[in-house]
């Protein structure tokens, strides 16, 4: 592996070696050092509301079954049979009390515990040869959730999720905590683009500068009144904790009027006023900023926009959550969910969904033009000329580091972190600086689990989003009998 320190130093001073957007060696490092330790979003709890519900999601190549077990505990099992390594669950969603491996028929409860091992006695001599008791599908090294958003970290010693998110939680709440019931997710739409995963994350984090140009067409057709250049630069970008985003400047008005301006019905505004903190409300009501796109390091993004959905003047807000899942240095799988407050009126949910489909996702009219740019950029970054080019990502800074527009003061912006109005690349630099810090440091070797041997999964790694309830050991035999009776399989 060649020395990357020159590349990383350039990145840190905001001069981006263009090849980082299509570089095999850096991609190998990203797999180990970015995705080997960061908190990576996998699902939302609303996708698995009932006992036995599951979705199968990946972190890079690793497939995980994200399941709600019979006790309601959310778990993430590595989707590999403990016997010969077959994929245990080959559906991407469903409901199952047990997963049965199609190869030799080992079966697992939805909490991961092994319950069926054909011919345990005859083949292994029972527990003396293979310790079935206590064995479970390998849990994700670390699992946690915030506002129902479930994250996995491949680092068992990762800092707690809430600490990792830090002050970005203040902004995440606008998207995910509009009522006591939180959001519900639909989807995702999934599609692959020949673009490097970092480009989308950077764009959503802070690229207000592209909006008037890239998205001219959606303004021209009367879909969206906001992206006009003058409007976009009046908004601010902010960075806090592990994420940052963009906002739009709202026209003068009261708090209620401003929420209604982007299309929220009064009953939803009333609930938001109950849920959000005084400062969260002041960002809208006093400061006049409405959150729009955002990214959480490394590869999760959020959107909040308010287009027209019919031939009237009424606009409707929608929320989307999306993940830039790396496939290779030049390919990304996009997973794009529609999200809506669970307590919103049904009609609002339907129209908000319509707004989402028209703007973002696989068919979205904003998204279409974004992706065209990113594919083209990735392709151009592959060759030797890109290695001779340092892209200037210092927008917002003079040569000596002075800010072109000073940061907003506490009376101008009530949110945590640092915020600036106007066009700048503060957030893209924040994102890539974290990336450089991770790329620089090797990860510790992962511990291994010997299947059927003396070593057992420790309680702290038991893969439950909430502390698992101690489970009676004598349950195992009864479970196995039940599994065999049901012949259940996923």
């Amino acid at each position, binding site marked *: 592996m060649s020395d990357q320190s020159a590349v990383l130093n350039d990145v840190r001073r905001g001069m981006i070696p263009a090849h980082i957007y299509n570089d095999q060696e850096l991609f190998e490092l990203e797999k180990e050092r970015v995705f080997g330790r960061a908190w990576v979003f996998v699902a939302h709890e609303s996708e698995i509301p009932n006992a036995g519900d599951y979705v199968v999601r990946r972190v890079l190549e690793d497939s995980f079954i994200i399941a709600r077990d019979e006790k309601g505990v959310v778990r993430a099992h590595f989707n590999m049979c403990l016997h010969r390594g077959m994929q245990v669950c*080959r*559906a*991407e*969603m*469903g409901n*199952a009390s047990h997963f049965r491996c199609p190869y030799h028929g080992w079966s697992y409860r939805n909490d991961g515990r092994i319950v069926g091992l054909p011919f345990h006695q005859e083949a292994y001599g029972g527990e003396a040869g293979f310790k079935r008791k206590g064995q479970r599908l390998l849990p994700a090294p670390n699992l946690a959730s915030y506002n129902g958003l479930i994250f996995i970290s491949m680092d068992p010693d990762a800092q707690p999720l809430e600490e990792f998110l830090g002050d970005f939680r203040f902004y995440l709440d606008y998207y995910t905590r509009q009522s006591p019931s939180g959001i519900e997710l*639909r*989807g*995702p*739409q*999934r*599609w*692959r*683009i*020949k*673009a490097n995963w970092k480009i989308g994350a950077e764009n959503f984090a802070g690229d207000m500068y592209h909006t008037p140009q*890239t998205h*001219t*067409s*959606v303004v*021209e*057709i*009367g*879909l969206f009144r906001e992206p006009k250049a003058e409007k976009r630069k009046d908004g601010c970008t902010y960075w806090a904790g592990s994420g940052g985003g963009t906002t739009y400047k709202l026209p003068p008005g009261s708090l209620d009027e401003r929420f209604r301006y982007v299309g929220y019905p009064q009953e939803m505004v009333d609930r938001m006023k109950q849920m959000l903190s005084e400062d969260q409300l002041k960002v809208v009501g006093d400061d006049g900023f409405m959150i729009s796109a955002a990214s959480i390091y490394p590869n999760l993004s959020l959107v909040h926009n308010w287009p027209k*959905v*019919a*031939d009237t003047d009424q606009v409707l807000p929608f929320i989307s959550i999306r993940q830039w899942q790396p496939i290779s240095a030049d390919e990304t*799988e996009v997973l794009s969910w*529609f999200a809506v407050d669970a307590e919103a009126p049904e009609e609002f949910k*339907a129209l908000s*969904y*319509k707004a989402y*489909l*028209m703007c973002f*996702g*696989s*068919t*979205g*009219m904003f*998204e*279409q*033009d974004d*992706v*065209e*740019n990113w*594919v083209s950029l990735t*392709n151009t970054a592959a060759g030797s000329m890109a290695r001779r080019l340092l892209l200037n990502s210092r927008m917002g800074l003079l040569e000596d580091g002075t800010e072109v527009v000073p940061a907003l003061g506490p009376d101008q912006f009530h949110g945590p972190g640092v915020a600036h109005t106007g066009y700048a690349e503060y957030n893209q630099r924040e994102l890539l600086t974290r990336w450089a810090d991770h790329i620089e440091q090797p990860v510790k070797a992962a511990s291994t689990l010997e299947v059927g041997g003396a070593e057992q999964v420790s309680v702290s790694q038991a893969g439950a989003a909430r502390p698992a309830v101690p489970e009676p050991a004598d349950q195992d035999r009864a479970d196995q009998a039940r599994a065999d009776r049901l012949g259940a*399989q*996923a």
Partner: protein
Amino acid sequence: MSTPATTPVSGPAARGVTPVDLHSARSVLGAHASRIQRTGRTLPFSDERHLQASQWLVDEAWLLDAQAYEEWLELLTDDIHYLMPVRVTTALGAGYDTSPGMAHFDEDKYSLSRRVARFLTEHAWTEDPPSRLRHHLSNVRTFATDDPDHLVVDSATLLFRNRGDVREGSFVSAGREDLLRRTDEGWKLARRTIMVDDAVMRMQNLAIFL
């Protein structure tokens, strides 16, 4: 008109999976859509109605290849429901193979007209330069309905899309179920359900129509 005994019986695509003609009714934005369904068996290929439906689909495919979207829009009724569910991989017997409450397209005339209007601006970058498109159409079969002015038509479509000179082209394979309505201006599309064969689309965006 007699039907040969070998004609396949119409019916659901597969056991345990929602019949195609019910997806529109179940979709989030399909409330306004016509509920007319097929009756009986496939019409003989020599049937005048089948010939008309087949020609309509072929002519439409040429319009879509040419990105003649204004003309295409004229072929859609005002109450059109244009639906492309998101397909998901589920266990045999799960009873569904589309993502509940999510689609790629779940469109009415307004949203389709905005999409078309966007392509007609000079700033729809994703199609400037334009893609080279070819909609390959096959497996057309036509069904009568209880209303003589409506036909249900099944077809398979394979779209090849190629952009620029570096990237390989990409494909979308799909089955479609259309509801055609006879109007004073000829047959028009009143409902389309596109059952794409990919769970993960292998195309950078769906700035196309199927």
